[in-house]
């Protein structure tokens, strides 16, 4: 039915050109601003990062590997992976469920639920840890009952996992709520009217639509789960080889003046941060490209 040629808007962007002309600054101002930003980044981000790695390898590659292969270091790495391995999938499920409820339905107490989801962001991590000590510790509310049944939560792995779950709870939900709200319910309604069950609708229609946002939330959640210090520190008890996570292990080594060992473990965390950034950028780029593509076609819609 289209007789007109589709006009491609790619590479044109006249609006952008006009904007630079009208709102642009002089070259001097631009270079000064860019210079300040670069200097700031160099001082506060690149320099520390470089120091972490240079300190880690200060005594050469041999001691670096040796300090990573120490039983205590290995156990800390294992515990960090375990805590993240449990916290991230659980928060994935909780986050999707909560975001789903908030994004797609109207119900009483919705704003309260949103506030509760944000709570871990607004509460100091130390306080979060303390809550668990007060709940499950020997002197705590549930402590005596737990002790009678021989269940240890505080100063043990379950406490660390619980604290990690609490601190990282908002990441997935926060990422998905605006996305689900923006998408509305029409596609789900269409799926239901076509005879799909609730689960089919979720897995075939809703989930594919939020996959990039979800992945982004999971990446951030994972980074925080592995890097969390405050809350975990309170509930861990710092038992070497048993309840130390990587960040806690770094602190202990540092306090014992084992600088290169401390920085070796720290370099792993720094690598994790870099890898997270890389994946995050890739995901963002992929999601943006998808968005731009559909926007481009939306623009041409009027013509065809």
């Amino acid at each position, binding site marked *: 039915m289209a007789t007109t040629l589709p006009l491609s808007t790619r590479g044109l962007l006249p609006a952008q050109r006009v904007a630079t002309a009208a709102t642009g600054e002089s070259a001097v101002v631009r270079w000064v601003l860019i210079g300040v930003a670069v200097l700031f980044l160099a001082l506060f981000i690149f320099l520390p990062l470089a120091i972490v790695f240079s300190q880690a390898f200060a005594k050469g590659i041999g001691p670096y590997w040796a300090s990573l292969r120490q039983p205590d270091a290995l156990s800390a790495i294992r515990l960090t992976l375990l805590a993240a391995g449990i916290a991230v999938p659980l928060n994935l499920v909780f986050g999707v469920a909560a975001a789903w409820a908030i994004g797609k339905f109207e119900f009483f107490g919705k704003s309260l639920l949103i506030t509760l989801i944000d709570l871990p962001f607004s509460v100091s991590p130390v306080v979060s840890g303390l809550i668990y000590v007060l709940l499950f510790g020997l002197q705590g509310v549930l402590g005596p009952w737990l002790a009678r049944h021989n269940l240890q939560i505080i100063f043990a792995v379950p406490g660390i996992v619980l604290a990690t779950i609490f601190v990282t709870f908002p990441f997935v939900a926060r990422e998905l709520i605006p996305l689900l709200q923006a998408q509305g319910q*029409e596609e789900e*309604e*269409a799926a239901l009217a*076509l*005879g*799909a069950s609730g689960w089919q609708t979720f897995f075939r*229609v809703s989930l*594919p639509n939020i996959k990039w946002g979800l992945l982004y939330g999971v990446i951030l959640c994972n980074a925080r789960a592995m890097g969390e210090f405050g809350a975990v520190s309170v509930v861990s008890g710092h038992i070497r080889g048993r309840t130390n996570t990587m960040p806690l292990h770094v602190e202990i080594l540092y306090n014992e003046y084992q600088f290169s060992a401390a920085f070796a473990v720290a370099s792993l965390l720094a690598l994790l941060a870099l890898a997270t950034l890389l994946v995050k950028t890739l995901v963002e780029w992929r999601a943006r490209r998808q968005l731009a593509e559909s926007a481009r076609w939306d623009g041409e819609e009027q013509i065809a």
Partner: protein
Amino acid sequence: MSIEAKNISKKFGQFAALDNVSLTIPSGELVALLGPSGSGKTTLLRIIAGLEFADSGTILFDGEDTTHRTARDRRVGFVFQHYALFRHMTVFENIAFGLKVRPRSVRPSKEQIHAKVHELLGLIQLKNLSGRYPSQLSGGQRQRVALARALAVEPSVLLLDEPFGSLDAKVRLELRRWLRQLHDEVHITSVFVTHDQEEALEVSDRVAVMNEGRIEQVGSPDEVYHHPNTPFVYNFLGSVNLFHGRMDDEIPAIHEAATGDFVYVRPHLLEIQRQPNGGSNFRAVIKHINSAGPLVKVEALSEWGAPVQVEMSQEKFQDLQLAKEETVFIIPKELKVFHKAI
């Protein structure tokens, strides 16, 4: 399959979207729900579909109570105003969706699904675009895919919510003729919602005119246009001149002063003449003439100061040679008296 809505009421908070609405749609008919925004037409459609549930009242499909069945169990095809295509699926996958999600025991084979989708792609004339994503289609193409997707599950009823609402004028015209044709071929009971009276009158077998949560009138396009029951219907189905007036000895007449009754007359049912005809005519001064288009639109001011719109053919306009600020006589050919204004 026939549809019957009985005494349907629905409130959103304090707002009564539907107020005791009853409507019967005979099997195989194409019915338009016509009304301004907020008149409850979309709500009624969604309640028929099972996407929304009424506070009170019943919905019957072929005499069978479906009031409490969900959209999934009602076997309706629903077409959304903004298409609601699955954006991560191709055209083919979109159309096949309803067949693929069926329980294994009643799911058609892969080959059958393939054949069915291709049959529908032929019907919507998009055979060569089956691999495209919705974002790569034009609005008109998307709406046709949405229609094919709804038809794929062989629904007993087809429901369309402002199906052409977000398309530009030309595509809209083309698509609504196509819908009419399609309905003549498939003969599936269909209900579509629109706020465009031209669309409703052109496409449907019958029109239900809705206003403020109630149905004002149901009838064939001819009936509702020529014999409107209420001032609202008269006004909504075309342009109108509103005067004071009343029935004088069984004959409707225009009065200058308020009488408590109102006279409605369509612009094309007013005639302009140079000389008074001795009967029911009034003097007016021509204020504006728009002769672009099939009809010439004349705006005038009556002797008592009321604005009057008159439409006439180009031919008639050429004969009269009207000019601005000229005084003429207007003769109403067909008046309709209602006791209240809109």
